């Protein structure tokens, strides 16, 4: 059967425990109705479909499921990953300092060309802020990656962050494809239009 999508990207969420990674991806068990079988065993990954420039993109998004507590995120987890969201908590200095360790871990275990993005989560908690936005921006510049402050709780920038990462992976993939097969006609892809049907990525139950 013919594929019904143009691209498939595997994305990972990486960062210290408690920075809100799970909240970025999963609603999880706070809802009254969800004291069920599923909340007991937990969710491993999700498949999401988005559209960028009329291309259908499947995202397979993985959380570390607590592995990060032991600092033993293994090569197996990184295998095939094309994009990584590095997440820290703007109210936890330590989680920001640890981003450097996570980047080292990624360099040791993930593919060299994996697309990375830095997220300062919990930006709704401005009164408890320990890490300024400028420091986040500066670190991202240092590593040559994109940066956004997000709030999974207040639905700020989460969806935008995923669309940005997906769009960057797509651009990289298309560039590589063009290098391998130069286009015969004048058919160029423009990365101008970013859209999605639902605001699925910004949902969180911890409200």
């Amino acid at each position, binding site marked *: 059967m013919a594929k019904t*999508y143009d691209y498939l990207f595997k994305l990972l969420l990486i960062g210290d425990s408690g920075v809100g990674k799970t909240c970025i991806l999963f609603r999880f068990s706070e809802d009254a109705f969800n004291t069920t*079988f599923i909340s007991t065993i937990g969710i491993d990954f999700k498949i999401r479909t988005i559209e960028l420039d009329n291309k259908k993109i499947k995202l397979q998004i993985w959380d570390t499921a607590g592995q990060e507590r032991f600092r033993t995120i293994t090569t197996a987890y990184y295998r095939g990953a094309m994009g990584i969201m590095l997440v820290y908590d703007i109210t936890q200095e330590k989680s920001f300092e640890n981003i450097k360790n996570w980047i080292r871990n990624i360099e040791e275990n993930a593919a060299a060309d994996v697309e990375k993005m830095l997220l300062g989560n919990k930006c709704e908690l401005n009164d408890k802020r320990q890490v300024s936005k400028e420091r986040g921006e500066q670190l991202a510049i240092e590593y040559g990656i994109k940066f956004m402050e997000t709030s999974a709780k207040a639905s700020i920038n989460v969806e935008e962050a995923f669309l940005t990462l997906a769009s960057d992976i797509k651009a990289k993939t298309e560039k590589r494809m063009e290098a391998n097969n130069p286009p015969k006609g004048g058919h160029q892809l423009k990365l101008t239009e970013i859209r999605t049907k639902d605001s699925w990525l910004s949902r969180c139950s911890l409200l």
Partner: protein
Amino acid sequence: MTDESNFAEQILNDKNKTNVRCQFCNSLMLKAKEGTYAEQEIDVPLMVQKKDSKADALNTEALHHFWLVEDMMSFENIGFSHTVDGRKFLVCADCERGPVGYHELASKRCYLALKRVVHADA
């Protein structure tokens, strides 16, 4: 949920005639014609467990009618639970209610239970 008496009208040339959605939040799970009708008897945990039930006394029901999805990437939006006895359970990617079916690790197939979803294009 979809009533068993309505299953027959959801099938067209062995495929799902319409889109398949979450019965609670209407999230689009599977587009029309992406699933193949399959019958088998499988015990699947209930979506709501009794309050006094323990992990070793899981409330299940036997389900018989499924949409077989060979490639998990055929789904539009879906969540996969952690593995239990060689299977992952399927849940709504948006509201996370489920199981709405299961994924068999050995065969890599996914089975979406007709009874636990709704069939509607919009």
